[in-house]
């Protein structure tokens, strides 16, 4: 394995393990909220968008309506459409391949892929990261749903593992002036809108940062 690929594998497995611990917490919470083991596992297998799943379960367990659980979860999942657009530039492949790739088009796989410098390594990083997160997320969900007692991810600082990883993954995007401008605007807009917009929207609104690309270089 070339060194950069080894780095991607090591980081993907680490992130995957962190994802797995959150998945255990999800499995426990989902069953506690009244979902069956089958429903809990089906959510992780089919929805596969962690934040949306947590939100849906917490709305349902708080006695909220199915419609409000759906609405909130959909808002959180919407950014994956932007990732799909971005990855469509980098992922080759025929329709069946793309249909499979779509299911693992999430924060981690998109960030890891776009941090790579060549087309081949971008594709590879996408599949390795998406695959690792998918396996760990579903394994953790099953364990949590069956075992019913979770480790607290926060005790190990695992909630900081994701922003820490994203810090390293954003670095290559900050080399150009436009990249730095887009990053600054994206982060500021998100920070400013978190207290006022529904959960999920701030990340979408942060997309205005891409408008620095409108002007010709």
């Amino acid at each position, binding site marked *: 394995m070339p060194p950069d690929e080894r*780095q991607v594998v*090591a*980081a993907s497995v*680490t992130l995957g393990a*962190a994802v797995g611990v959150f998945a255990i917490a999800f499995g426990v919470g*989902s069953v506690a909220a009244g979902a069956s083991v089958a429903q809990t596992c*089906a*959510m992780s297998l*089919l*929805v596969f*968008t962690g934040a949306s799943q947590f939100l849906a379960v917490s709305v*349902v367990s708080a006695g909220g309506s*199915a419609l409000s*659980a*759906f609405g909130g*979860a959909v808002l959180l999942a919407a*950014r994956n*459409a*932007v990732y799909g*657009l*971005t990855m*469509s*530039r980098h992922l*080759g492949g025929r329709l069946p391949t793309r249909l499979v790739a*779509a*299911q693992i088009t999430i924060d981690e796989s998109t*960030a890891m892929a776009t941090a790579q410098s060549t087309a081949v390594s971008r594709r590879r990083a996408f599949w390795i990261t998406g695959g690792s997160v998918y396996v760990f997320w579903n394994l953790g969900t099953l364990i949590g749903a069956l075992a019913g007692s979770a480790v607290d991810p926060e005790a*190990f*600082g*695992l*909630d*900081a*593992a*994701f*922003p*820490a990883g994203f*810090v*390293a*993954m*954003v*670095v290559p*995007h*900050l080399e150009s002036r*436009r*990249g*730095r401008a887009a*990053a*600054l*605007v994206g982060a500021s*807009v*998100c920070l400013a809108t*978190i*207290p006022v*917009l529904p959960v999920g929207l*701030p*990340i979408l609104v942060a997309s205005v*940062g*891409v408008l620095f*690309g*409108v002007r010709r270089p």
Partner: protein
Amino acid sequence: MTWALVLSLAGAAYAFKVTGLVVVGGRSLPAVVERCLSLVPAALISALIVKDTLSTGDELVIDARLPGVLAAVVAARLRAPLIVVIVVGAGVTALARVVGLD
């Protein structure tokens, strides 16, 4: 929790993911769109960092995640490998919680 909710969520989540990948596919888009799309990771990953570090739900909070992520920034600037940056971020946050910062 109902199967209707599980399945409609699955459908909606997949619809979002698949739209860009399949509808646009590998077709080339106008140059201006391509230039904007190339800035998506910069804008959205930065937003994710801010959200994951400084918020819980719709509230802004400063807690043990902040020192962890700042340590990760230092590690990334020192060109540490990705796995090291992740472990440093989680480790410093865990330590901060041990000493009672939360």
